């Protein structure tokens, strides 16, 4: 019985909008902008026109996710395993503090930091001239890592915190050196947090709009920016829909591939997503 309302919500909230977009993507642009019914794949044939948005998204989103993992894991490990009773609450607060102000404002702050008056100015002082940072892929990457790091740290931290520390001692007792202990015990047992964090960050990054808009300055744009442009500026709804459907398709493929790889790696153990 309980399943019925859940199913209804699911249909209404998730499937319906997708269906609408899918139908739009097969239509044509009305002369005054918007949508006019048709049944054509013309929009999809035109996708290459937005290739740059796709390549940007598909390089920077995975790269950003990987960098987040590389920075977040050691930090979460320190927090959960090594930090003393005093340092732990302090460090956890540091992770959470950024959420207290709007993401928009924090990203604006980065415009200043990465802009002419910020880091390049400091570099000038030590003799590195003309180093441009703002409106480059690097700037976007920095913004991405900064914005999404906490979302990666927290799930990993939780899974490491739950890890029974005596298992690490057992491993050492049975002859595994610290590196082997990490790969045989710590990493597999914190994998659920790692998978959750990666999916969370990756999915959100694939749809990211704000960071490239502000730190990419129209030069480094994501699929999200292209969509805004297509729907709001040029009012080409069918083409925008085709771009959106393609993005969803790529995302599904990527996540499926990832989960299959992770699942096979972890053998018979269930992979728990989220």
């Amino acid at each position: 019985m309980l399943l019925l309302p859940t199913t209804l919500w699911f249909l209404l909230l998730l499937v319906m909008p997708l269906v609408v977009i899918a139908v739009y993507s097969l239509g044509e642009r009305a002369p005054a902008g918007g949508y006019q019914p048709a049944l054509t794949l013309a929009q999809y044939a035109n996708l290459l026109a937005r290739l740059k948005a796709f390549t940007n998204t598909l390089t920077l989103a995975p790269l950003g996710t990987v960098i987040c993992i590389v920075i977040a894991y050691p930090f979460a490990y320190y927090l959960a395993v090594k930090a003393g009773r005093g340092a732990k609450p302090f460090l956890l607060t540091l992770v959470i503090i950024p959420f207290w102000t709007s993401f928009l404002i924090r990203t604006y702050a980065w415009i200043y930091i990465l802009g002419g008056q910020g880091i390049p100015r400091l570099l000038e002082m030590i003799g590195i001239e003309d180093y441009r940072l703002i409106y480059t892929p690097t700037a976007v990457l920095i913004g991405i890592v900064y914005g999404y790091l906490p979302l990666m740290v927290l799930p990993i931290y939780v899974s490491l915190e739950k890890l029974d520390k005596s298992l690490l001692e057992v491993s050492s007792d049975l002859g595994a050196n610290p590196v082997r202990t990490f790969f045989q015990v710590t990493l597999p047992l914190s994998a659920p947090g790692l998978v959750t964090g990666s999916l969370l960050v990756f999915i959100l990054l694939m749809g990211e709009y704000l960071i490239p808009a502000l730190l990419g300055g129209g030069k480094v744009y994501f699929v999200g920016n292209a969509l805004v442009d297509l729907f709001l500026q040029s009012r080409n709804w069918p083409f925008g829909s085709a771009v959106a459907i393609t993005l969803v398709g790529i995302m599904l493929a990527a996540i499926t591939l990832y989960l299959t790889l992770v699942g096979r790696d972890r053998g018979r153990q269930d992979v728990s997503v989220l």
Partner: protein
Amino acid sequence: MVEMINGAVDVEFQGVTKRFGDIRAVDNIDLEVSSGAFVSLLGPSGCGKTTSLRLIAGFEQPSAGDVRIGGASVVGVPPYKRPINMVFQNYSLFPHFTVADNIGFGLRQLKPRLSKSEITARVGEMLELVRLQGFEERRTWELSGGQQQRVALARALINRPTVLLLDEPLAALDRKLRQDMQIELQTLQRDVGITFVLVTHDQEEALSMSDTIYLMNEGRIIQMGGARDLYDEPINRYVADFVGKTNFFDGEVAEIKPNGAAIRLANGRVLYGRNPRGGVPLNRNAGGAIAVRPELIHIVKANGSACLTTDVQTTARVKNRIFLGEQTEYLVMAEGFGDILVLASKHAETVSGGFSPGDVVSIGWEDSSALALENTSKGDHSTAVPVPK
């Protein structure tokens, strides 16, 4: 199978101290575990048993003193380089491995690497040893407490350590299973010939399983010896109190005899007790206690046909009776002595017909059954000497 070398020492502590801040968890301990022995560390909660084991395993480093394994100092050597394995208090099985993968973990760390088939074969041997054949592919959380315990045991034994450490391995099991596992552990130890160091706060467990017991208190070793030594020759009041049940009669030392002492109780009565072997003779004019085990006290009906001929005799009133099956325990109140615990054997019960609360009885014991003990309730380090054989 590890060869048993007679007289060889596997683990040795030389004046080992371990401090945590201000706490001395282990306080200047000397210890010697000979090869192939089954040794117990016994003592109340917080006396430093786990810390001692962790010092042997290498999870802790001594603040002072030397830890030696097989004759060589291992201070600074990490756990994964020590020929020692441990069964943890809560088993700590790897949740992401099957039973077989848990047991084979130690083998998979070896260099040069063993072949898959060799690992499978040796895991199979271990499963047979702990009687868990057919459980290879089970997940650890699908096992009962006793089965988990055996997996932990097999996992710790598979690398054939010189010494196996066991931290209260049976504490989580119910009484019946615990007794079964005690016998199993003893048999296993004899079969594999590996030195066992067992930590327990259960004196019965220590007495029934081990060759040598180290009785600890507050980070120190109070007495070391076999089960009989600790039970029959406790060197002071603390040991007598911790190991088995005992009646104590406290007073002043009235007279020092060649092999014992006489102690004057508060009611003026003088009781005699012999010195325990290895104990320190009492000082005149100091406090002392006479200790008598409940099973060494005779109990008969007062003014009945049977009459006592023991050195010490008194009348008493039965306060309580507990039927223990093979024995009956009486709590009696004797004027001038206080409450006294008496254990009557099944045989004695049949002869006397038993007693009920309120009955007046005669109780008594031989002077040779009584010990004159130092009144230290704590262990004094100066008395921590092994009992001469």
